[in-house]
């Protein structure tokens, strides 16, 4: 008990310190910028690959099983192992971190997009066909818009988990805010530094999530009345 009290009263190692944030604003902001750009690039690249892949799985039913199974197996591979597989080839740098997080984000988006596309009612599809839409017209004008809620759920999940995953990049020294957290740990367990990095990570995830939620509401006005 006395140990805990003395621990808590320790003035040299507070849980949070504005002093630390002020004195190190350059480093912290640079890490935050690094983290944000890495996340946004990763999600963007992942979406550009995942949505066509999901459409492929939707159009050619026999491909659905293999694509989902492959993504499932890849998702089982631990992130650190994925770093270990990719780093010997791409070296120590942004390319490695980006590949790993893109691979993970890819799986989440593919799954949710396929689910979204499969939710399109058969009658709607038949009606579109009856109105003379071809395969592409139907996809762009009917099916993808109706699958938007699923796609956006995938994007949000992918974004939030990517923010968390980027921190694992510390293994090759490119972990964004993870560098701040890890440096705090090595810095004799400097709590203020660790907490600053962690809080910024969670905040970044929250902000990006809310942003995507807002975008989703703007893009799907027909759902607004129903949700409220």
């Amino acid at each position, binding site marked *: 008990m006395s140990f805990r009290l003395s621990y808590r009263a320790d003035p040299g190692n507070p849980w949070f310190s504005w002093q630390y944030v002020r004195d190190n604003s350059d480093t912290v902001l640079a890490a935050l910028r690094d983290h944000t750009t890495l996340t946004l690039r990763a999600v963007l690249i992942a979406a550009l690959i995942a949505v066509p892949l999901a459409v492929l799985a939707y159009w050619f039913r026999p491909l659905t099983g293999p694509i989902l199974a492959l993504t499932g197996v890849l998702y089982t591979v631990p992130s*650190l192992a994925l770093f270990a597989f990719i780093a010997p080839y791409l070296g120590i740098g942004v390319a490695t971190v980006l590949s790993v997080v893109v691979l993970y984000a890819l799986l*989440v988006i593919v799954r949710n997009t396929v689910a979204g596309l499969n939710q399109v009612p058969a009658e709607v599809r038949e009606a579109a066909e009856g109105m003379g839409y071809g395969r592409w017209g139907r996809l762009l004008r009917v099916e993808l818009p109706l699958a938007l809620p699923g796609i956006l759920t995938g994007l949000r999940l992918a974004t939030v988990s990517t923010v968390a995953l980027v921190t694992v990049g510390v293994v090759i020294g490119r972990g964004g805010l993870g560098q701040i957290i890890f440096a705090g740990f090595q810095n004799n367990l400097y709590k203020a530094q660790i907490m600053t990095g*962690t809080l910024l990570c969670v905040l970044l995830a929250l902000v990006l999530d809310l942003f995507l939620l807002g975008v989703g509401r703007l893009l799907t006005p027909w759902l607004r009345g129903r949700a409220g």
Partner: protein
Amino acid sequence: MNPVQQAVVWLNDPLNWTNPGGILDRLGEHVSMSAAAVLLGCLVAWPLGLWLGHTGRGGGLVVLVSNLTLSVPTLALLTILPLTFLGFGRPAVVVALAVFAVPPLLANAYTGLRQVDPQTREAARGMGMTGVQVLGRVELPLAVPYLAAGFRTAAVQVVATAALATFVNGGGLGEIIRFGFGLSIAVGGGQILAGGLLVAGLALGVELLFAFVERLVTPRPLRRARSGAGRRAADAVTGS
């Protein structure tokens, strides 16, 4: 020599397996750490999930818990817990890993009880069963496949996350990868790749083992109905 050949050479050196701090030591640490974490997670999540599912309350709480843990970086939790009263060392790592085991266990326990046909529940009540009897004799047996699926997801998740324990000097197979990176890629490339193979192999092995267990404990009539829709619902809740 390319990294794959280097990895094969590294894995073929018996000393790398049997040395103190070699593969066998690290594997033991990894498995014991993960097992303790999953057990701790079960002790917390199952009673809570079963109770919430039985009473039908707290669906929002279950979603909130899984969303919250998704956004907290593993690394942050691993570094923060040693700063609390848990102190620096194995207990803090196990608790951190258990936190990541809770969402799939909780969500599946909850879903498992909620998916029980209300008519079945009513029939049990009509037969004069008390709340506890309904839970123990009707709801729980019907929820076993979901509990097993949650256990599998949690075990795989924990084994994967335990690889990161190396950042807080917590041991486990992740150490092999981090030591490799410490040597630089040119020298340690083989060791890095070998470590990655071991970690990924362990995770896939655990997945296969518990997928088999899941099949074993699922009563035959429930197998066909569950394999498609139920599994997908459970996956959607855990966000994978």
